């Protein structure tokens, strides 16, 4: 990975950094955030929105971009800058439209679990019904009650990290050990949830 070729990270470096592990991944994401930070200023001029609003939309756009890269939804058919700008621009337009009709929190919508989309239609319908906003809110609180290591593990799993990556990041001997620990954490969470 050539970090020194230019003043900014290349698309290739950004994409490989996002799917790497630990510190390098975090640093790459932070640099990505920094690299296109000027989008915020552009949006305040172009869309006449407040700096804080633009910043919040920009953060959501970066998070969406990262998720798309990790889940292979970004195929590299366009430049990172173009793709990120498209996401950001859509969010800004959406925000303005919703604000104008007094429907706020446009960018706080519940996102459907990616894996559900890939299921056969019949199963997808059943699974969609099983996802409940109320349950998510309760579990949100319960996850915070887990021990630190379990919490880290469950959050990493939710972000799409493999057991192998989790093992490396959290210092487990193998992916299998990490997987067993993760399932034990989920068991613990279920007990908390039922109590």
């Amino acid at each position, binding site marked *: 990975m050539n970090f*020194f070729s230019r003043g900014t*990270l290349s698309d290739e470096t950004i994409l490989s950094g996002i799917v790497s592990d630990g510190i390098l991944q975090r640093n790459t994401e932070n640099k990505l955030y920094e690299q296109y930070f000027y989008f915020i200023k552009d949006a305040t001029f172009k869309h006449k929105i407040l700096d804080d609003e633009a910043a919040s939309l920009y953060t959501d756009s*970066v998070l969406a971009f990262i998720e798309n890269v990790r889940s292979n939804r970004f195929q590299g058919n366009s430049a990172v800058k173009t793709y990120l700008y498209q996401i950001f621009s859509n969010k800004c337009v959406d925000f303005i439209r919703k604000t104008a009709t007094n429907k706020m929190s446009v960018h706080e919508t519940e996102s459907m679990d990616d894996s559900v989309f890939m299921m056969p239609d019949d199963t997808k319908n059943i699974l969609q019904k*099983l996802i409940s906003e109320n349950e998510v*809110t309760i*579990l949100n609180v319960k996850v915070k009650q887990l021990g630190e290591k379990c919490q880290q593990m469950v959050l*990493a*799993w939710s972000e799409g990290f493999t057991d192998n990556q989790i093992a490396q990041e959290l210092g487990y001997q193998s992916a299998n050990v990490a997987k067993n620990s993760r399932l034990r954490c989920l*068991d613990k969470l279920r007990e908390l949830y039922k109590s």
Partner: protein
Amino acid sequence: MLEKIDKYFNNELSLSERQGFEIQLVKDKELKENVSFYLNTRTAAKQLADDKRRGEFEELRKKISLKPQESGKIKPMIWLSGLAASIVLVVGFWWFSRTPDLATDVLADTYIQENFQNLPVKMDASADSLQMGLRLFNEQKLSEAQIVFENILKRKYSDSEATKYAGITALRLKNYNEAIQYFKLLASQKDLFANPGKFYQAITLLQQSPINKKEAEVLLKEVIDDDLEGKEEALKMLK
């Protein structure tokens, strides 16, 4: 049961097992409840992970916003455009010539975070001061660790290990000038088998604001030419 659900969502079941799972899901209430728990947990955890990252980005935003930036309203007067273009050229040239690659500090950051979070401690629980300092460092009690290393240096000013760790601790505490001083002292010790003093100086310079890239590059080149500790990393950085 969670294991089977996990395998289903990770595509680790055979086709027949998948089909069996989907048929069972329609009629088995317990399986349904468990799948519901699994999916809701992942959604909840993802929200928490995103919130955490949002907070980190917000911190980053504050940091970026604190950096001096050009400000002022856009003046639509045409006669000013020539002047503005000249200023942009001058500022641009100045900025380009003094601002280091963004990626330079990524690599320096990464090196520091990978190598200076935990320092090697002897497993024999020895009570000597250096080991005590290292244990404090690893417990992230950096200021206390620094006091221990400084006390060693008060007793024995040329202790290379204490000098090195005092420098690393100062670097972690973001006392960059102090860190550079320690690393200069370390680099000046000629009788060491492996001396990372110059390399550490270079990465400290890359942490400072404004980053002193030119001086860091000179040091990195010396590390390579003199075959010093940190040569491999220096080669990557100057690639």
